[in-house]
């Protein structure tokens, strides 16, 4: 912490580091952001975790959470505000951190802040003809359900702004595809896009030349809805972000609120939450494995994955009362204690799953067709992974150690022994096969964690009494958790009311999708599908 403060004093001289915050925070003027960001990047802060837009009512602003791939536990927060609300502009950092590209588009879409020199200021989630910016506090436009499809022009014209010598804004625009390119639409409704992602792919025969993901076909505005809900009411929505790691998301939000409100959760609840998190991770990876096999044409493998996943669903149903959405964690603990035979069921499942994984390896991993399709396809180097912020198994397959369970242990993760599954950085190329195999390895590691937790389940209660109306003290809170797809983050800005002022979920999937274009360039159509499956993104998580 002290080191980072010293560093901040060096990169931003004369700026005061705010006291009493979770992470070292400095507030900057808009024109200072780029200089500080560049210096931070040079000092090793190469991973932009999150970029949040906030409406401060008098002005609009952004909050940057920045971490490093070398000094993994360090996090710094930068904040900035626009001059006014009418013509809000900020400077882009997308050339410094590649992952800011999509985040800045998102901020533009929600708040209307335009970023100078950002190459692509299209709306990301909402339609091009949407009126207003919904996340502003004074938003009251009424947009009816449209009857016509999205206008192709609004998808293919990239507007951008830049400053001339006198500091005046100049508007520019560029075409996404050339006139003679053979552009094929994948999605929004397509079996291989894992949801409703719209990919515009430029082809040269079978070779992919360019991929342009078009988001927003499942943008539900959860973050905006959260601003009018109380904290317990937000919980069910967190599960519906990335429904495959629903428990983990819910756990993260509970932790964030508990930390802010100073609620101490009993050990037993912590353990059970972790077991559920890991079971969710196993279920998610099984589905990911199955979907990858199905996308490659092996439907039988998919069915086997689903068959074993049902066993986890049974455990969820028996204890929590829901299958896909267990709704088990609540603020202050769990809804109910587990059923008496829980430990037995879980240890049976662990034993069964270990055998199944061997079967999967014989059925699919050893298959020369499958390996041939995955090896040497979609290379993602460690540098690109960090720059794009592709956390989770995808990043670890490229050799980037980024497991939040290790670097910022939460709940019961500091009480178990486990290895962060990493592909060997020397031999590893970070191709589709690495991303595939790491998931099965992670399942085995998760089974280890489950076994340890399950054998040492404490016997204190599962919840503590919390006030009927949860209110967080004024301030900003951030909580990271390792979801099945990577670094999931919850940002809450509270103004002391029972409703949060601003909630932002750091979606691991959005950065994964942004990796599609660099990974697929020069590969074949079939590889586009394999790479997409190996990234294992969930669109509703990206769109929120």
């Amino acid at each position: 912490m002290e080191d980072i403060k010293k560093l901040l004093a060096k990169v931003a001289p004369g700026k005061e580091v705010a006291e009493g915050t979770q992470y070292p925070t400095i507030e900057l003027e808009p024109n200072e952001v780029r200089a500080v960001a560049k210096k931070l990047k040079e000092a090793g802060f190469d991973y932009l975790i999150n970029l949040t837009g906030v409406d401060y009512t008098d002005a609009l602003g952004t909050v940057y959470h920045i971490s490093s791939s070398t000094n993994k536990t360090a996090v710094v927060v930068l904040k900035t505000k626009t001059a006014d609300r009418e013509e809000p502009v900020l400077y882009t950092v997308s050339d410094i951190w590649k992952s800011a590209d999509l985040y800045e588009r998102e901020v533009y879409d929600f708040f209307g802040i335009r970023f100078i020199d950002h190459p692509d200021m299209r709306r990301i989630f909402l339609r091009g003809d949407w009126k207003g910016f919904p996340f502003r506090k004074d938003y009251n436009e009424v947009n009816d359900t449209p009857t016509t499809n999205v206008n192709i022009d609004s998808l293919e014209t990239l507007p951008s702004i830049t400053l001339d010598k006198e500091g005046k804004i100049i508007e520019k625009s560029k075409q996404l595809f050339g006139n003679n390119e053979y552009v094929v639409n994948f999605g929004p409704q397509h079996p291989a896009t894992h949801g409703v992602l719209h990919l515009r792919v430029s082809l040269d025969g079978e070779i992919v030349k360019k991929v342009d993901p078009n988001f927003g076909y499942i943008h539900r505005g959860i973050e905006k809805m959260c601003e009018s809900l109380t904290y317990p009411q937000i919980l069910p929505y967190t599960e519906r972000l990335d429904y495959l790691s629903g428990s983990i998301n819910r756990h993260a939000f509970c932790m964030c609120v508990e930390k802010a409100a100073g609620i101490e959760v009993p050990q037993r609840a912590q353990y059970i939450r972790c077991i559920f998190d890991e079971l969710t991770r196993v279920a998610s990876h099984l589905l990911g494995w199955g979907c990858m096999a199905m996308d490659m044409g092996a439907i039988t493998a998919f069915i086997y994955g689903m068959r074993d996943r049902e066993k986890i669903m049974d455990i969820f149903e028996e204890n929590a009362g829901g299958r896909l959405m267990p709704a088990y964690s609540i603020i202050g603990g769990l809804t109910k204690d587990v059923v008496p035979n829980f430990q037995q069921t879980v240890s049976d499942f662990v034993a069964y799953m270990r055998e199944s994984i061997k079967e999967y390896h014989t059925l699919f991993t050893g298959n020369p067709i499958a390996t041939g399709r995955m090896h040497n396809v979609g290379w993602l180097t460690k540098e690109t992974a960090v720059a794009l912020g592709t956390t989770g198994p995808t990043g670890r397959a490229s050799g980037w150690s980024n497991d939040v369970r290790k670097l910022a242990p939460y709940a019961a993760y500091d009480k178990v022994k486990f290895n962060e599954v990493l592909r060997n950085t020397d031999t590893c190329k970070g191709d589709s096969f690495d991303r595939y195999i790491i998931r099965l390895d992670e399942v085995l590691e998760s089974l280890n964690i489950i076994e340890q937790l399950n054998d040492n389940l404490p016997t204190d209660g599962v919840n503590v009494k919390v006030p009927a109306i949860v209110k967080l003290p004024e301030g900003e809170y951030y909580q990271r958790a390792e979801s099945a797809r990577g670094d999931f983050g919850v940002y809450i800005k509270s103004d002391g009311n029972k409703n949060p002022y601003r909630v932002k979920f750091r979606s691991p999937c959005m950065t994964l999708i942004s990796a599609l274009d660099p990974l697929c360039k020069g590969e074949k159509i079939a590889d586009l599908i394999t790479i997409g499956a190996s990234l294992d993104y969930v669109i509703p998580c990206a769109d929120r």
Partner: protein
Amino acid sequence: MSLELIDGINKIHTLLTDNIEATWVSLIEYVLVGLGFLTLYALIALFLIIFERKICAYFQCRLGPNRVGPWGIFQVIADMVKILTKEIIPLKHNDKLLYYAAPFIVIMGSLLTFGGLQFAEGVYGVDFNVGVFYLLAVSSISIIGVMLAGWSSNNKYSLIGAMRSGAQVISFELSACLSMMAIVILGGSMNLSALMAAQEDAWFIFQSPFTWVALVIYLIAAHAETNRGPFDLPEAESELTAGYHVEYSGITFGFFYVAEYCNLFINAAIGTLVFLGGWQALHIPGCEGFNAVMDAIPSYIWMFGKTLVLIFLSLWVRWTFPRLRIDQLLHLEWKIMLPFSLANILLMAIWVIYFK
């Protein structure tokens, strides 16, 4: 039974020739035989659809259709009724003639091949002196239909699917032919009846070790020609949604669907006829008692039984493996199967010269 069938057919023939003029007789007979073949064709398709669904379900530890009729056997009838009464959507901005002709070309191609098969002792449509050559030739007609379907649908997915299909079928046709040529060398004839006769004592696979190589190559190539997984690139559900027939609905799609299953049968049947002795019973030279027992089993059961085994094998492969990528597919054909089959022909010729 096949002999009784032939008897019956002869009786009808005499009945007709006694009463009607000869030209009319042949005309009526052509129509009758054609109808018979069409019925058999449809029945085989229906059977195979339910067979595959059940088998695939068991491979995936499911049950498969079991609610329509006992064990779900009427499931395909329901499918047929549904698909016959389904709307055919006319498209704008496409080549109407080719669009509607394509499914017919596909089904004609497979029917023509079907006519050249032998189903039991003495039960066949025609017996060409170049039977094997004929089968190979007409079975590649359907690819024209596939290409036309992909082209005329005016859809990018179907166009890519059709182009893939073209590349795939044409290259695998080569291996299929070459592997059969090895058998032609061994059997010394292209006439299917002559080949059958040559297998009376022992099936070709028991006559030479190189027949096994040819059989494996043929099975892979034939499987690839049917456009079924792991060679279903032209359809590639997860990439091209439905490939070349993405725009077809109702019975026009039904034709593609039926032709796919019949091609599965046809390829297995050709494999049986050429490699596994067709309708010939399993004979072990010198074992008279055993041979007599085997002969007691009717020839059509031999034929269909062996075909079914090959079909089962093909289903097993289909429901286990992932799909190949286009470069893997071409690598498999041009760098592995083609050299192997060429070498195989050479070795087979040497074998025939020295050991036969």
